[in-house]
Structures are given as structure tokens and as C-alpha cells.
């Protein structure tokens, strides 16, 4: 008889196998695009979740790191001819460095005011990139030169390689989360999320733990920025620092279940599937439909299921374990 852990590994292996085989079976490029979006936002959501879900530092400014990652790799590629693969890591490092001053400022505030301060930092960065034209193309942005099939420059002729890249990124984020969840730091984060003052009182170095998790979260989000720019072959301040990126990072985690490994993944699947369905029914002609529906889902989750879908699943699963002997008897 296998334990829960054993079944868990079987399910995981099946999920991984399905994810790896998916582009070989599904040839529809619209479907592949949706898969890439789901994986990308699950990745960004997982990065957000480390800070927002476990430590409950509710950032609404993760677009800052996304944009910095995107701009760093693009500047390196266009001005210096350096491969975006190197640019992705450098961009992520820039995002990580940026999280230090941003965190230094914003962690002085708590709760809603932390959220507002992070909105302000992302906005300042966007306005700076809009304003200083000589530095990075200003408001017009730039297209990434298309080199055709150039794997070393992260450019491919089909969408399938992008799928595997972002799948790999998500796998990294999930492994990092899994590892942190089980480490001492994971418990520190949850303690901070529950009550900062109490965590401090029992000897957790709160500022240091928050700083470190912010750095990891920013690093991962920066990588997403490079990937996205390479994927759409275009960058401008409005796309790179778009507030919707900050919103969606938080939303997928909250809907899926904050502070859980799979929450952001499940949340993204739900939200992005809904959005793809809406798009295919209504087309792109009516603006605002997608976010209206997202807002309604978010409200419903907050009012009726504050622990998100994961919380609901855990509750259902737990009930089954408890009631099954009675049912059997």
C-alpha cells in the first residue's frame, strides 16, 4: 500500500511527463500560446508568492523587477550584442540588486502602505524609462532584431522552444519554493506572515529574512521579464513595467492559494483559461472584460474562500480522510 507521499510522487511524475509531451501532441499554435502564458504567469506568481504568500508582504509592484530584467537583457543584446541567455541572468541580478533599495524603503511600511509604496516604485521606474529617451528608446520602445533561428540568441522559429524554456523557469521557481518551504527560512517566513512582532520577539531576524526573500522573488521576476521580451520581440516602458503584471502576479497566487507550493499554478490555470475562453467567445473587441471577470473572481475568493482553491482542496481532502473510515464501516 502506498502512502500519500508515494501517490504524490506518482501524480508529480505524470504531470511532468504530460507537460513535457504536451507540445508534441497539441499542434494548435493558439493553444501553445495559451500554455506559454499560463506557465509564464504561474512562474511570476510563484516568485510573488515567496514574498507575498509566505511572508505576507503584499507587493503590488513586481512589474519593477519584470521591467528591469527585460530592459537589462534587451540593452545588452542591442547595444553590446550579448546573448539574452546571459542577459537573462544579468537582468535577474539587476532586479535582485534593485530589490535592496526598494525593500529598504518599502519595508518601513506595513500592510496596505507597503503595497502602495511598491506601486509607487514600479511607477517611478516606468516614468523614468518613459522620460529619458536617450537611455532606452523612451516611450516608443524598440523591436528586438529578428535573427530567424538563433537558439544562442534565444530566438526560435516555432513557439515550442519558448514553451520548454518557460516550463524550465517554472520548474526552477517551484523547486526553489519547495526547498524554502522545507527549510528553516520557510518557517521564519510563515512566522513573519502570521505576526511580524511575535516573530521578532522569538528571535527571527525579520529585516534580514524579508530582504533575502525579496531578493529571490525579484531575481525570478527579472528572468520572466527577459523571457517575455524575447518571446514578443518588443519592449517599451508600458509593456515592461505594466501594472497588470503586478496585479496578475498577486491575483493568481491569491485565487490559487497564498503560501502554498501549487497555489499560483492552479490560480493561473483557472484565470488564464477563463480569459482565453472569454476571448474566444467575445473576441478582443470589448476592452475590460478580462479584468472585470478577474475582479469578480478575486472578490468571490476573498469573501467566500480566503484560503484560495488550494485551501479548498486541502479542506475537501482532509474531510475525506476523516470521514472515509465511517463510510467504509
Amino acid at each position, binding site marked *: 500500500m502506498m502512502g500519500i507521499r508515494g501517490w504524490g510522487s506518482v501524480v508529480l511524475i505524470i504531470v511532468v511527463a504530460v507537460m513535457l509531451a504536451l507540445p508534441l501532441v497539441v499542434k494548435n499554435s493558439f493553444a501553445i500560446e495559451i500554455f506559454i502564458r499560463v506557465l509564464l504567469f504561474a512562474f511570476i506568481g510563484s516568485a510573488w508568492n515567496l514574498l507575498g504568500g509566505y511572508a*505576507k508582504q*503584499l507587493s*503590488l509592484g513586481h512589474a519593477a523587477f519584470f521591467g528591469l530584467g527585460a530592459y537589462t537583457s534587451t540593452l545588452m543584446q542591442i547595444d553590446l550584442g550579448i546573448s539574452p541567455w546571459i542577459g537573462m541572468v544579468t537582468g535577474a541580478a539587476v532586479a535582485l540588486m534593485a530589490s535592496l533599495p526598494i525593500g529598504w*524603503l*518599502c519595508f*518601513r*511600511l*506595513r*500592510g*496596505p*502602505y507597503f*503595497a*502602495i*509604496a511598491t*506601486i*509607487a*516604485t514600479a*511607477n*517611478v521606474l516606468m*516614468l*523614468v524609462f*518613459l*522620460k529619458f529617451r536617450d537611455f532606452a528608446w523612451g516611450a516608443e520602445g524598440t523591436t528586438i532584431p529578428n535573427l530567424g533561428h538563433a537558439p544562442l540568441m534565444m530566438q526560435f522559429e516555432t513557439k515550442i522552444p519558448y514553451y520548454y524554456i518557460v516550463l524550465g523557469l517554472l520548474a526552477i521557481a517551484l523547486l526553489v519554493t519547495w526547498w524554502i518551504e522545507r527549510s528553516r527560512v520557510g518557517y521564519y517566513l510563515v512566522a513573519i506572515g502570521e505576526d511580524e512582532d511575535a516573530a521578532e520577539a522569538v528571535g527571527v531576524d525579520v529585516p534580514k529574512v524579508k530582504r533575502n526573500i525579496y531578493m529571490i522573488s525579484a531575481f525570478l521576476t527579472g528572468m520572466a521579464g527577459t523571457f517575455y521580451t524575447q518571446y514578443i520581440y518588443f519592449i517599451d516602458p508600458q509593456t515592461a513595467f505594466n501594472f497588470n503584471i503586478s*496585479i496578475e502576479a*498577486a491575483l493568481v497566487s*491569491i485565487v490559487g492559494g*497564498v503560501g502554498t507550493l501549487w497555489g499560483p499554478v492552479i490560480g493561473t490555470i483557472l484565470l488564464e483559461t477563463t480569459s482565453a475562453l472569454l476571448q474566444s467567445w467575445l473576441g478582443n473587441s*470589448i*476592452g*475590460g*472584460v*478580462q*479584468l*472585470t471577470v*478577474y*475582479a*469578480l473572481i*478575486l*472578490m468571490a475568493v*476573498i*469573501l467566500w474562500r*480566503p484560503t484560495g482553491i488550494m485551501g479548498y482542496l486541502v479542506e475537501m481532502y482532509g474531510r475525506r480522510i476523516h470521514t472515509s473510515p465511517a463510510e467504509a464501516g
Partner: protein
Amino acid sequence: MLETIVQAVINGLLIGGIYALVSIGVTLIFGVVKIVNFAQGEFVMVGMYITYFLATQFGLDPILSLVVSMPVLFVVGVLIQHTLIRRVLGLNDLPQIFLTFALSLLLMNLALMLLTANYRTVHTWYSDEALHFAGLYVPVAKLIAFILAMFLSGLLWVFLHATDLGKAMRAASQNREVAQLMGINPHRVFAVALGIALALAGAAGSLLMPFYPAYPLVGQVFVLMAFVAVVLGTLGNVIGALVASLLMGVAESFGIQFIGADSGLIVVFLMLLTMLAVRPGGLAGGRRR
């Protein structure tokens, strides 16, 4: 040069009056209910569309439509308190922040969906009028908006200090438990606070309409300004929010005058971040709640 500076100060003060109406609302809700209303700007937007509708359908002057927009939004505020906010009181930060945040997203995108992204303007006989003296220029519509905004702020101050309900609200904001022990019904007080705050946002919408276009995302400009002003003026403090809003207006106006037309917001954000850097102690309410 001096003239340019004085002109920038005047421009800043005039728009600062509108910012004051929005930030007083935010600070009132925060002080009494202990919730940050991310959707406050969207109620300005609702106020603007109500005013636009009344002006185009019935030819009602935007200033006169205050008598409609304010009561309507007061009722909306009471309803929102009873149906939504009441349910997340006493919970942790996450539901409290994201409930009003979701409300803001919902209102913005509903407006985008139903009313399109087009800019809507109302032209009145005083929209293009201006007073000229000593080389200075004061647009009449903005002057009227400023005067009425100050009048409404003053009225609120009198209400908070001279009426029983107002005193109950101040008591609830100072110490909720003790206020409750003194027989103050918190839910009634909360509902009135939400109602008044939204009525002020509605008033801001009506007053803006003669010189500012309505569009679905218009609230964002005002809510960001209000957040900065509210933090600057110490949270939950009405007079502080008023003074800070006027300052924000002047700072933004200096940014526009001396750096460039699109840099007003940069100046405002930089002010917020600088303030966080140099005197986080001044943000008492933001650190300990």
C-alpha cells in the same frame, strides 16, 4: 520668474483642493474603519460619469449636479460597507487590501466595458473663462471647484467637531473598543464614514467635470495622489490630509512647470519615496496599526 512661480503655486493649490476631497475621504475611512480604500479614485470616476450623464441628458450644470452625485455616492458607500467591507473587518491584511483593490479593478473595467475608453467632456459657459490680474491667470472653473472643495472640507470639520455623530466617529477612530463601551454603534459609524467619504469623492467628480475629461482610468491619478497626501499628512488626520493635498498639488504643478508636462507624477512619487527614506517615523499610522 516670480510670476511663473506664483502662477505655479496658484495652479497647484487649485487642483490641490480636488486632491483634498479625495484624500480626506481616504483618511476618514482609514481613521474610522481602519481600511485603506483602493477604490476611492474609482468613485471620483463614478461621480464624473454621473455628472456627465446629467449634463448631456438633462442639461444640468456640473456644479449643480453635486446635489445628485453626493447623495447617490453616500448611499453607495453605506451599501458597500454593509455588503462588502463589513465581512472582512477583523481579518488580516490580505482580504482587507484585496477586497477594495478588486472593487477598484471591477469599477474601472466595467466602465471600460460599458462606456468605452473615450474621453467625455462637459463644456460650460465658465469652462474657458479666466480671471486675469497682475499677469496671473486663474481659470474660473478651477476656482469654483477649489472654493467648493474647501467649503465641503470645512463642513466636514464642523460635522466631526460639533455633532454627536461626528464626535462618535472621532471617538471610534481614536479607540474603537472604548468607543463601543461608551455605547457607540460601530457599524452605524462605519457606514456613515464610508458614505461621507464616497460623497466627497462624488463631489470631486462633479467639480472636476467642467475642466477635466472623464474616462475609465481617471480615478488612478487621484487615488495615487491621495495615498501620498494621506501618508504625508499622517494617517487618519483630516486637517493633515487637507494641507498635504494642497502641498502635493503645488509640488506636481512645480514639476509640470519646471521639468516637463509629463513629470508631475514623478515629482509626487519621488516625494513619497524621499519621505519614506528620511522620516519614516512621521508615518506613525503606517507602521503600527
